[in-house]
């Protein structure tokens, strides 16, 4: 594995190996005073974020630092990107400056793939930390890690992804990964927030949240992405919340063991009520915690092994 660009086409065995590594790292570091491993000493990781982010960027940085890699953060605002440098030139500059791995978030779908193509032969790897409405593979991996931890297994579980599927890279990455790991995925959203061609995805589709809840093992709430909405996808925030928000009443319709996930950032009162977000059924802070270990595992699998002949 040299790049991690998408969960679409990711070998399930490889995904399980990453999850197992994350699990071992978590247990190894539990309760330790010094949470630092020398594994990636001398490797340089650059995060390149063209979009806002708190948890993804911080957890990649923490993950890199706990593995002793040198982590450098480049933000679009403070770099030559502001002077008009292209993504390609910025990437080649970072590679020439010694980056072993570039972690990129970009508003354009497919940006990470293009980057990996441009960096072919330079020895620099690419991790997609979210590209437009396409994919966010490490988020799906940390969701899978959290589900595995809470439910024991993923195969055979029924998991709903609820809300703004159309604009959600988290939803796409999770559909590919969770179905590859053997889960049944059902997308629950108003017709306007489902992508065209969803019929060809390996999922069930529903517009009625209440009808789905009793049969679920997990429900993943998506944020309504106001920044990507430039049209009337639903009449009002209040109406959306009534039809698709997860509240106390809906929580009681879920089976006892079912888990509530949210990739964050949450809009409390919109897609998820404060009561649900703070209930012990929600694994939202665990997702963030697992995010660090999963990203450590990804860095380990991308950077620790034998160097491939470039």
């Amino acid at each position: 594995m040299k790049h991690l660009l998408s969960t679409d086409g990711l070998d399930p065995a490889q995904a399980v190996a990453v999850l197992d590594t994350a699990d071992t790292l978590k247990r190894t570091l539990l309760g330790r005073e010094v949470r630092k491993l020398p594994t990636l000493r001398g490797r340089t990781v650059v995060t390149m974020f063209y979009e806002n982010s708190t948890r993804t960027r911080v957890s990649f940085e923490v993950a890199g630092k706990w593995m002793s890699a040198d982590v450098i953060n480049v933000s679009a605002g403070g770099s030559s990107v502001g002077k008009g440098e292209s993504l390609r030139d910025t990437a080649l500059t970072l590679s020439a400056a010694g980056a072993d791995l570039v972690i990129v978030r970009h508003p354009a779908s497919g940006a990470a793939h293009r980057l990996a193509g441009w960096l072919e032969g330079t020895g620099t790897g690419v991790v997609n930390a979210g590209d437009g409405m396409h994919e966010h593979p490490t988020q799906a991996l940390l969701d899978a890690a959290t589900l595995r931890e809470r439910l024991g297994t993923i195969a055979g579980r029924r998991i709903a992804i609820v809300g703004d599927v159309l604009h959600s890279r988290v939803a796409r990455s999770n559909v590919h990964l969770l179905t590859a790991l053997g889960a049944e995925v059902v997308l629950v959203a108003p017709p306007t927030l489902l992508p065209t061609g969803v019929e060809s995805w390996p999922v069930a589709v529903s517009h009625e949240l209440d009808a789905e809840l009793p049969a679920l093992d997990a429900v993943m709430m998506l944020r309504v992405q106001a920044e990507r909405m430039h049209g009337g996808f639903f009449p009002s925030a209040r109406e959306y919340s009534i039809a698709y928000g997860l509240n106390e009443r809906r929580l009681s319709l879920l089976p006892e063991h079912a888990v509530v996930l949210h990739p964050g950032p949450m809009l409390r009162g919109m897609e998820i009520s404060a009561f649900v977000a703070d209930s012990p059924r929600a694994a939202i802070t665990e997702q963030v915690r697992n995010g660090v270990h999963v990203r450590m595992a990804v860095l380990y699998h991308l950077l620790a092994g034998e160097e491939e002949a470039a």
Partner: protein
Amino acid sequence: MAPRVRGATDPAERELLSAGDVARTIARMAHQIIEKTSIGGDDVPGPDARPVVLLGIPSRGAPLARRLVELIAEFSGVRVPVGALDITLYRDDLRRRPNRPLESTTLPPGGIDDCLVVLVDDVLFSGRTIRAALDALRDAGRPAAVQLAVLVDRGHRELPIRADYVGKNVPTSRTEEVQVCLTELDGRDGVYLRREADQ
């Protein structure tokens, strides 16, 4: 990587220790550890007395450490804590080899601070595994002292490291390979010398 069948019958292979030899050797090592660390001594614990902890290095050091602890309990009446210390993340050859899966690290509930830690491994060769283990220990706590127990010492050290307890010293050439089989992982006990390392 396909799992290699350890100790498969092969003309280029010689038995160094039989199953009975392995059992006797481990028992002798248990006695030596008791003697040298004064486990279960009748004397009033002096200021130098330190609780002993055995840590096995996966994969084969871990079951070896567990066996030693059983025997130490049998011979001395004292059950010392046992754990496992995976050193994969501390290796100095990570970039020279294909990615390897991690093994689990389990420290005893009391930790290892101010203890006498006895590291346990199957074969002592270059000493690089033990160097990595010492680094891993430093992150896991601050033991009062560290000792090393190995079933086989095959020489060819590349670092200034020696074992405190050695089951068997075996002169080898660098091209040979020493294989330790343990019932817990390989279905039977035995130590074998393979003529040419099949690499």
